[in-house]
């Protein structure tokens, strides 16, 4: 038993050391910064300890931004589920020998630059872009296009994070015994009832893992909202970014980062142990 424990930890040690130094230690430093006092010089954050940064971060002025960020993240997760589930299910059930090729086809677009793709959407969605032009043929166009709307931000985020939903969903669908669906039909259940009582519980681990992988990163993203939504739709991530990038206020930025980390912990705790084998 002891030998097995030593062997496992030995194999895990390099990873543990790397993550400990370059990820966990920095996160601890952020927590430390969040209680420091702002310094406008090169030191950025200095003693004495204070909770001032948290008081500022929780100021009602930031509340709309926080709310908007959460709304974007939730809407993105929902959209990724709506698009990703049919895709994952189709590939797992009907893909046959083309499964790998179909999965690869899902991933190919993500081998181009993320920024280039976002700018492509920007071009497609703006006033004289393709989307508006095509919608114009049926009279559904919108003055000035769809840029700088909430819809554009959610679309961009959904596009960016879809693979993180599809992959765990696919793993779950592939393990799912499709004969259960036939059995459910044979036993007289309809399509809706079969979906909620047989399919959904069967792939729940994938749904949870995928949602986790989309929800939290989407809540932290600021490049997509900035480019597709403009300054008006700025998110929590971009407020954090401003505090660091301009050298404005490291303690405040750190306190906000800690608040986002709290969100991560809450989501992880809510998820509990379910879906651990998929993630």
């Amino acid at each position, binding site marked *: 038993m002891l030998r097995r424990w030593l*062997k*496992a*930890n*030995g*194999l*895990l040690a390099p*990873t543990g050391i*790397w*993550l400990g*130094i*370059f*990820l*966990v230690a*920095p*996160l601890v*430093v*952020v927590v430390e*910064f969040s209680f420091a006092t702002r310094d406008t010089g090169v030191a*950025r*954050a200095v003693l004495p300890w204070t909770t001032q940064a948290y008081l500022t971060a929780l100021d009602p002025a930031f509340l709309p931004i926080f709310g908007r960020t959460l709304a974007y993240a939730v809407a993105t997760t929902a959209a990724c589920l709506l*698009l990703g589930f*049919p895709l994952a299910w189709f590939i797992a*059930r*009907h893909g046959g020998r083309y499964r790998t090729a179909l999965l*690869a086809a899902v991933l*190919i*677009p993500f*081998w*181009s630059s993320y*920024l*280039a*793709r976002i*700018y*492509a959407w920007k*071009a*497609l969605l*703006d006033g*004289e*872009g393709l989307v508006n032009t095509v919608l114009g043929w049926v009279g559904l166009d919108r003055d000035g296009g769809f840029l700088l709307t909430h819809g554009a931000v959610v679309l961009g985020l959904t*596009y960016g994070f879809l693979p993180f939903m599809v992959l765990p969903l696919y793993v779950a669908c592939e393990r799912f015994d499709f004969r259960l669906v*036939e059995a459910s039909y044979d036993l007289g259940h309809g399509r809706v009832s079969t979906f909620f009582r047989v399919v959904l519980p069967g792939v729940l681990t994938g749904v949870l893992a995928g949602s*986790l*992988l989309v929800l*939290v*990163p989407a*809540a*932290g*993203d600021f*490049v997509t909202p900035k480019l597709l939504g403009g300054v008006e739709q700025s998110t929590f991530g971009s407020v*954090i970014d401003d505090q*660091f990038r301009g050298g404005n206020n*490291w303690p405040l930025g*750190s306190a906000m*980062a800690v608040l*986002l*980390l709290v969100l991560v912990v809450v989501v*992880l705790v809510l998820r509990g142990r379910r879906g*651990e*084998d998929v*993630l």
Partner: protein
Amino acid sequence: MKRRPWALGAVVAVVFLFLYAPIAWLAIASFNSSRSLSRISGFSLQWYEELADDSRVFGSLRLSLQLALSSAVIATVIGTLAAFGLRRAFPGRGLWTVLLSLPLVVPEVVMGVAMLGFFVKLAGVPLGFGALLFAHVAFSLSFVVVVVRSRVSGMDARMEEAAADLGASPFVVFRTVTLPLVAPAVVAGAAFAFLLSFDDVVISSYLTGVGSTTLPVFVYAQASKRGISPEIVALSTLMVTATALLLIIGVVVASWRARRAGSTAKLAG
């Protein structure tokens, strides 16, 4: 009875359209004769020509490739070891899983500012290639572990036991049985790590030093001033085309080898 999934197929087609629309648009716009990305005014190759002459783009492209390759190699080696470490249950495995899931769920902006603060204030690591490498391995490592672990945990341990029973040393067992079985997942994990590093904007943007700008950071900085340059659109088009070709060749070769293996087996059997 298996119903024909017409409705499902239609939804899937729409999702693929959604996935490929921007890529297709980039490819079209890369041949545009004007700077505009949204309105196509004519055909030209000028952006490809300008790209070929742009040494700054190639400088940052080379840095990005070096960074992505080195971080993918490191992440794949230590991540694969970790995936094997997690193979059998042992006290404390749950804690390891929590640690490994951190990079997957902590928002990039939080990781970026945390690493910036850590490198600058505490560790005294100068910003630049080294800091980028440490960070990129840290955020791509877990993806390697996830991918390889899914294969390792589905592996039949009896194959290795059989080899050992037949007198193979642990090293021979690993090289001739274990490694071939997990190789596809290791390759997939490495590709994943490479891609994550190669395309990262947010974390890298905090850690680049003078003269060590990665391609995405360069593009972002340039684009926020005057919109994305058509050269970058041309470069993206080339990169997607190259990847798609590589993948298609890979799939064709794999299916050809599978068919050949199948027919050999039939002959032998």
